């Protein structure tokens, strides 16, 4: 049964500490000086020990997907001629997520649990141990378009905690967590979700062939620097590459690791024989954007993009996903008229 309550700061911290004793808690944190530019901070997902450490009001630069899909992961080792799986186990882990990021999990699940008809065991094992706590959005951020993407609301969380002027409000959806909240007054607490996007977005209904040869991509080639930040910050990008890495202690028994890949950076589309068929930055962008807004959905029935807006925020060239979708819409509309 759902429980709602308000807590003062001490109560909330006590509850949190008790939870943190039993779970690893990963949440947005403002890391001073960790920004790319000198004397700037980085808000990103980190393990936290207290509620006070959590940055509730800012969006994270990177998503939380590395909890489920570490940037680098040892898959197995070749031990004297046999492939031996490395069984890393993730302890039960709570991740504080916004609605869009909770929706992103469905994309990851589709890819790692369903696609090709077989589960990715590494992902699956972590996914089982992951619990979502909901972060409320302080109204839409400038770059958000979750309402357009249908990812602005969710019920798929165990606990919702909101900092208030004095203390915190909490909503416990998952009974397992009730015991951490033995105090507090019952009160109406419900997360507020974004109702409207700053700039609403409509996805194209049909992608015309004319789109692929459109001059817009050449323009984007001039702008996009193919740095891959849109991928590395995205909560739904899942591409990886695989590499054998010598063990430090035994060069005869390498480990096979997988490592995040990015369809924007070099060599992603390199064929054997060193031919890369997708070099123009605009083409790489088109490949990514169409995946996010149409291609993925054709296979899995839901759009890949959750409208979190991170790719807009992290792009050093201020290329906007929303503008790109708009451009695509325009081209397709024009194509449809002509065709």
């Amino acid at each position, binding site marked *: 049964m759902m429980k709602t309550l308000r807590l003062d700061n001490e109560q909330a911290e006590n509850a949190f500490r008790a939870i943190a004793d039993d779970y690893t808690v990963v949440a947005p944190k403002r890391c001073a*000086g*960790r*920004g*790319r*530019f*000198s*004397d700037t901070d*980085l808000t*990103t997902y980190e393990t936290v020990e207290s509620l006070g450490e959590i940055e509730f009001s800012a969006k994270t630069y*990177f998503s939380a997907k590395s909890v489920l899909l*570490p*940037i*680098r992961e040892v898959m197995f080792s070749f031990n004297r001629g046999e492939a031996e799986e490395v069984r890393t186990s993730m302890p039960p882990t709570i991740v504080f997520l916004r609605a869009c990021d909770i929706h992103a999990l469905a994309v990851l699940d589709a890819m790692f649990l369903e696609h090709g008809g077989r589960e990715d065991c590494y992902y699956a094992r972590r996914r089982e141990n992951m619990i979502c706590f909901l972060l409320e959005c302080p109204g839409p951020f400038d770059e958000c378009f979750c309402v357009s993407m249908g990812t602005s609301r969710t019920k798929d969380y165990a606990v919702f905690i909101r900092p208030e002027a004095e203390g915190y409000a909490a909503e416990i959806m998952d009974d397992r967590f009730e015991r951490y909240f033995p105090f507090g007054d019952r009160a109406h607490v419900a997360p507020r979700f974004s109702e409207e996007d700053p700039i609403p977005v409509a996805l194209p209904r049909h992608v015309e062939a004319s789109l692929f040869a459109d001059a817009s991509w050449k323009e984007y080639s001039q702008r996009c620097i193919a*740095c*891959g*930040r849109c*991928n*590395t910050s995205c909560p739904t990008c899942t591409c990886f*590459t695989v*590499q054998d*890495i*010598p063990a430090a202690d035994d060069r005869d028994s390498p480990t096979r*690791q997988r*490592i*995040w*890949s*990015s369809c924007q*950076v*070099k060599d992603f589309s390199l064929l054997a024989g060193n031919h890369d068929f997708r070099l123009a930055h605009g083409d790489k962008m088109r490949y990514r954007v169409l995946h996010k807004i149409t291609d993925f959905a054709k296979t899995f029935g839901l759009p890949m993009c959750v409208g979190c807006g991170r790719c807009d925020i992290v792009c050093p060239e201020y290329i906007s996903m929303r503008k790109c979708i708009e451009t695509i819409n325009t081209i397709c509309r024009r194509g449809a008229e002509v065709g």
Partner: protein
Amino acid sequence: MYDTKAIMRKAFRISKVRNESAIRIRVPGGHLDAAHLSVIRELAETFGNGTVHLTTRQGYEIPGVKLTDLGAISRHMAEMIADIEVACGVVLESPEDGYPAAGTRNVCACIGNRVCRFANFDTTALARKIEQAIYPNHTHLKVAITGCPNDCIKAHLHDIGIVGTVVPEYDPSRCIGCEACLDNCKKKITNALSFEDFAITRDEDYCLRCGECILKCPTGAFSRGKKLYRILLGGRTGKRNPRLAQTFVENATQDIVLGICRNLHRFIATYIDQSKAKEHMGYIIDRTGFDTFKSFVLEGLTLGPDVKVVQPTNPGYVYPRRP
């Protein structure tokens, strides 16, 4: 009628136009509250010819003022001078008398990390600290601060150039092997990075600590470690022998930078050729030898194990002198 040397010591110019001067305003690091612009305009229109010059050292020069007006001008400028200098920690006994010295030139700085993405630190803040360390002082000294090794401020032509660097810290667990850092370093810098066994190795012997690997990394595998400073020594332009400054101290902390700046004047005062109106520090070092300079300016400073002190060779050229 007027004591030209006294006038110049107060940072006014002796103009080519008889009985005229130009007001000079120090702007440490070139950064200024916009409100002062009204004072500067007023000075130019009340006392000058209505124009201002942005100097080669990021200060102002207001031409066409009358020598007879210098006293009134000093009083007019007092509040602004105090605002600017006292904010740096400079002690001014009587701002209404104008600037107390002009020997140490305005401390120059690029815009630094308040705006620029390449800058490794707050150049403006350091300029203000250095202003406090070296001003007021009558000995001629030019210091410039640049946020990164690109050296937009041209620290390479200053007596002392401070170049902001950063120690890149590498977390291989965040590296996706895109080699953006490496490609950039190879193309634009010193190829200090290599990629082996799917991880970056940074060669300390070649790395300039410009920090561009941090800027290029899409995952934050490279992040910002300690801010360190390269201190360049001995650059100058001039008619006879323009030459480039070169590394004197590598990996200095800001304490070392400020300590050296504080020691400079004592060195100059001890060894300057008194017969000359102004002798540039580079020439003094040429005379005293580098070791004397080094022991003077490093006195009282504790250098950590990473700090390297080297003797610059100062490449340049000489306009030949008739034998």
